[in-house]
């Protein structure tokens, strides 16, 4: 049997649907017969929602952080633009970083790759 004290202790995680199922069942059982704990649950859910909404209204991370992370993690090629043609195996490949910053280009000559340019976005 679960009492109000124990139910209260676990309620925030019950509200979040984050309890192991055996504990969740015990609380659900308790709630059926306990109006005080049902009121507590309603209050926690309301507060959790408002807390989340408040936090999400605060200004978040800027694009600058992503750019710095990219620059420090190999200049990840996310979008690839093929610009060359296959005449004599010559092709130019420009790798464009996923959020719009060109990172590097490669010249392919008869299947051999020659780096053309590379720069970091900060």
């Amino acid at each position, binding site marked *: 049997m679960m009492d109000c004290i124990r139910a*209260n*202790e*676990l309620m*925030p*995680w019950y509200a*979040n649907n*984050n*309890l*192991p199922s055996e504990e969740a069942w015990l609380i659900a059982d308790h709630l059926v017969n306990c109006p005080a704990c049902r009121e507590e649950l309603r*209050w*926690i859910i309301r*507060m*959790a929602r*408002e*807390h*989340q909404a*408040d*936090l999400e*209204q*605060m*200004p*978040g*991370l*800027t694009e*600058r*952080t*992503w750019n*710095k*992370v990219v620059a*420090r*993690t*190999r200049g*990840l*090629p*996310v979008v690839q633009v093929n610009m060359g043609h296959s005449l004599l195996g010559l092709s130019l490949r420009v790798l464009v970083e*996923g959020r719009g910053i060109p990172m590097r280009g490669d010249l392919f000559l008869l299947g051999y790759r020659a780096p053309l340019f590379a720069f970091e976005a900060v």
Partner: protein
Amino acid sequence: MPEDNFLLSEIAKGDPDAFSELYDRFAERVFRYALTLLRDRQLAEEVAQETMVCVWQGAGKFSGRSQVSTWIFGIARKQAHNLLRQETKCKRLFPEATTLPDPADVVESKYQVLGAVEALPPEQREIVFLTFYAGLPYREIANLLDVPEGTVKSRMYYAKRKLAEMLR
């Protein structure tokens, strides 16, 4: 939508798309977690940056014993504490200096709940964030903070009581 675990295993193989996806899922939450701990926007951005770089470099070391989110928040926590130590040494950080509004002023404003959470002691504030915003089970929080599960529950219990006094 791919699972976090799957993304992490792809990142360990060097997949940039997987990293981009994981960044979108976590960077913002890491930033807000750091902001909760440090109350300084610039430092919180630094923590977010360092954490995501660590995720890229250390994805292969994830053991799978915890949720991916717990692992990432754990990295962020370590980064935040390192920064805090450095900053305290340099005396650049004022522990209560903040980008968030003063709790006393916000109780009447639209950020009522956030203002009340801000007024809690740091260790209670952290539990509230990890439970309500990050959505972690209490076992994962205990794991992350390296404290007994009972400590997590009692910190939340007292946090709830104070919030009720301020908000109800």
